[in-house]
């Protein structure tokens, strides 16, 4: 019996020690640079978190394959992901854990504006530079020094997108006179609709004929679409960020034969799962305002992404985290340090006009102002054509020509 016990102990010891013995004991040449990615990886926004992770991983693989961060002796970038879950509380505690457990040089996240508002407070307190694609204006209105917002903020998106739309509509001889505003009450949608409703549409002489906001989930879309059918708006501003709600509205729009052009607000409307759920015909000519989308000249990047992930196309979420990793890399090169404070200072001074970081986002130049907003960030208008979303505005960056849909 005793022998058996000794034997077992030996076997256990070998099993425990084996991985250590097998790993080559090479000392790291340089300290790794660790990036925290705090995004929803479970719960109803998990898909978006996954897409963000794909983009970050792709950029990291590229940086490391090119020899890492040269000014740091070829230091490699390592990703530390944390699950922001489905509530602000979970997102904040995930960020807290990720940033205190070990030395993190910079962070990315957390997709939903309300999550980002919470997570950036943690990053500010712990003095770690934080990059986000979230749209809400309030993210960079708090005087934070460590928050960098790469998307155009919601209110600016609304203003610039409306400008572009009115222009395009005029060119197509379909002037916009009546508009419908429908969507849920999540932060980014609210901030987009607010200026539209309060001043922008009025200034353009556009009347709001339907204005319906709901709390997800939507039980049934009949009543909303009925109102749209009755008023026949020239454009529908559309903000149904919750996938099942959006599918219900789109199905109902088809069922009721509504022909008004749809203008979505946000990248949630241009994900591959839409094609599978409702088919390419239903999506055709639907447009969305997004913060980033593959532009003319990025075909190579998109091809690499598709090969790597098996996704049918690339969208804002992976593209932004791809850009963020490259921006952090550039900042670390200049800071010659993995210290988060040094990297923050380098980001604040950054002005890059070439390389993967700069070319990933329009207008091809990365600079942040003193509030942490990216200078020159412009909204991109994307349109579904034949089951794939393409950039259609601004014109000089477009990969396809915009197709305006008959209003009546």
């Amino acid at each position, binding site marked *: 019996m005793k022998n058996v016990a000794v034997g077992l102990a030996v076997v256990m010891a070998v099993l425990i020690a084996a991985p250590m013995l097998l790993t080559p004991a090479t000392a790291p040449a340089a300290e790794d640079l660790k990036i925290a990615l705090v995004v929803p990886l479970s719960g109803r926004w*998990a898909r978006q978190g996954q897409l963000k992770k794909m983009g970050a991983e792709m950029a990291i693989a590229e940086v490391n394959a090119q020899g890492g961060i040269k000014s740091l002796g070829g230091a490699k970038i390592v990703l530390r992901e944390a699950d922001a879950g489905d509530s602000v509380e979970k997102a904040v505690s995930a960020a807290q854990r990720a940033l205190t457990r070990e030395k993190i040089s910079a962070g990315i996240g957390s997709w939903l504006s309300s999550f980002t508002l919470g997570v950036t407070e943690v990053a500010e307190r712990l003095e770690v530079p934080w990059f986000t694609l979230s749209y809400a204006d309030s993210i960079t209105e708090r005087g934070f020094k460590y928050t960098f917002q790469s998307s155009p903020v919601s209110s600016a998106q609304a203003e610039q997108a409306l400008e572009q739309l009115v222009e395009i509509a005029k060119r197509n001889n379909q002037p916009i006179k009546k508009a419908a505003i429908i969507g849920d009450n999540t932060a980014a949608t609210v901030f987009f609709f607010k200026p539209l409703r309060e001043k922008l549409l009025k200034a353009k002489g556009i009347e709001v004929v339907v204005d319906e906001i709901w709390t997800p989930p939507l*039980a*049934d879309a*009949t009543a909303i679409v009925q109102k749209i059918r009755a008023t026949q708006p020239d454009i529908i501003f559309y903000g149904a960020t919750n996938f099942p709600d959006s599918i219900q509205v789109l199905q109902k729009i088809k069922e009721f034969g509504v022909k008004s052009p749809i203008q979505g607000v946000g990248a949630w409307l241009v994900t591959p799962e839409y094609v599978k759920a409702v088919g390419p015909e239903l999506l055709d000519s639907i447009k969305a305002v997004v913060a980033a989308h593959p532009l003319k000249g990025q075909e190579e990047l998109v091809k690499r992404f598709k090969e790597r992930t098996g996704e049918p196309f690339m969208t804002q979420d992976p593209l932004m985290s791809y850009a963020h990793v490259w921006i952090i890399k550039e900042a670390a090169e200049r800071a010659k340090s993995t210290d988060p404070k040094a990297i923050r200072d380098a980001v604040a001074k950054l002005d890059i006009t070439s390389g993967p970081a700069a070319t990933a986002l329009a207008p091809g130049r990365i600079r942040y102002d003193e509030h942490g907003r990216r200078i020159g960030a412009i909204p991109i208008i994307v349109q579904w054509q034949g089951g794939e979303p393409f950039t259609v505005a601004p014109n000089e960056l477009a990969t396809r020509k915009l197709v305006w849909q008959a209003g009546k």
Partner: protein
Amino acid sequence: MALGDFLQYVVTGLLVGGVYALMSIGLALIFGVMRVVNFAQGDFMMLGMYMTYFLTTAYGIDPLLGAVVIVPPFFLVGVAVHRVLLARVTGGGDPQRLMDTQLILTLGLSLIITNGTTMLLTPMPRGIKTSYATQAFAVGPILMNEARSYAFLMALFLAGVVYLFLTRTDLGKALRAAADEPEAAGYQGIDVRAMHGLAFGVGIALVAAAGGLLATYHPIEPTVAVNFIVLMFVAVVLGGLGSIPGAFAGGLVIGIVQSLTLLVLPFQLQNVGVFIAFLLVLYLRPQGLFGQRLRAV
């Protein structure tokens, strides 16, 4: 408000409510027989949606038929879950302690199913594309969505089958006896534990079938249950805890109230109407629409 509009809202609510009703009777059956509040009920519905989805994509089975095809396998799943897990925390012992362990068990089961599905199938939403999801029957000025109409009829059919089973078969009568008076049923030679397994199996099969019907027009994702579980509980309490016809009526009432709320309140407050109706029922008829008043002796 024109009469046509009003009728449209009622019809829309009724069609939505049909599937709520089918979802809820499974929960009511489990509670009625076992006195277990099953928090994982919505997750079994989600699994039913996925199973129907895979039957459609792999074998081309129409989801309306798929919703029935998945009934037997889910019945077996329910029986197995009862035998392996729930049987350990039901029947005998300190009721308060049992209640605690049951809650922890079903909540834990719910978390494991949701997150396990997220890991295995990824959080990507999927949808079954049916031609009838975007078409409607026109009855005068009223439009009835085809997918929802079919789902409603199937829900009625399945609920009818369950009702006949409970009232016309010996097994169904034994089940009700075990629910009403477990001790006396035991004296009559009814195996109460087996009845629990049967109730859990049927309850799970019904909610999975409801999931299959829902999948004809609603996208499928691992977290889809959170959108429905609260409504199921409200329907069950509304109808009278444990009453099968009550839960069915409760589901229909929720659908109609949700729809009619929009006539008077903005969209953001769609579910407020449901909860106001719920509070009113609790205040005026605390035993629920179909519940029996209990008297302390």
